[in-house]
């Protein structure tokens, strides 16, 4: 594997996120996805980026077809980042799935943004609940 350069850092990060999204969508263990990301990147940056673009396009196509408002999806991604690391993937996927259902049921831009904002507002409370549950189970 070639030595990582600073120029590679952004595409690497982008591809790592895509690999993890891909893993979540197909119920693959995130660790396997990261291993795959490393080996893909080792095969060549261009190939890895092309693959990332394909994945991103597929995701965006699916969201557009469902009528998902991208800014609402962005709010949910941010809300998931406020949760403990171990719970981010699960709740991130759950939030996006609910947004998708909301969009499919005909919710407009404002309703979707409202959903995103409410999740964002309550993400800290959810994070607190998850952290305290983890502390409780560790103490037991």
């Amino acid at each position, binding site marked *: 594997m070639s030595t990582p350069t600073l120029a590679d850092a952004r595409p690497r990060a982008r591809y790592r996120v895509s690999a993890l999204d891909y893993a979540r969508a197909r119920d693959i263990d995130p660790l396997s996805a990261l291993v795959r990301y490393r080996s893909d990147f080792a095969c060549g940056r261009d190939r890895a980026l092309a693959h990332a673009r394909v994945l991103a396009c597929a995701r965006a196509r699916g969201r557009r077809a469902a009528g998902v408002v991208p800014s609402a999806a962005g709010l949910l991604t941010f809300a998931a980042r406020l949760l403990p690391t171990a719970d981010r993937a*699960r709740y991130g996927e759950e939030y996006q799935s609910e947004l998708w259902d909301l969009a499919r049921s005909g919710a407009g831009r404002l309703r979707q943004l409202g959903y995103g904002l409410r999740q964002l507002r309550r993400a800290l409370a959810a994070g607190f609940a998850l952290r305290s549950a983890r502390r409780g189970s560790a103490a037991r």
Partner: protein
Amino acid sequence: MSSEKRARPRMTIPTQLVLRSLLAEPARELYGLQICAAAGLPSGTIHPILARLEHEYGWLTSRWEDIKPEDEGRPRRRYYRLAEGGAERARIALAQAATSAGTTIGLRAWPVGDLP
């Protein structure tokens, strides 16, 4: 103290509404938006409650919907239901919450001059 605290969540009105909606059909699994609709709460407000009831108190269990997202053309949902024993504990907690609310209302309704 901590084990006592862990035995029962704070029975806020939204918590009670979520529990009541799950208790309506304890065997039925519901996903987030369905719970919101059944409880009459705005979408996007119940996840902290669900997280507490599931992870901290063990009253709920959840699982991913068993579908392939690429085949169905939509992401999988997360389904919740009352755990074994959770339904009973939820019923007791709701009854206690109703009793204490009734007591408070009863005391407030009692005219101060007529108190024994």
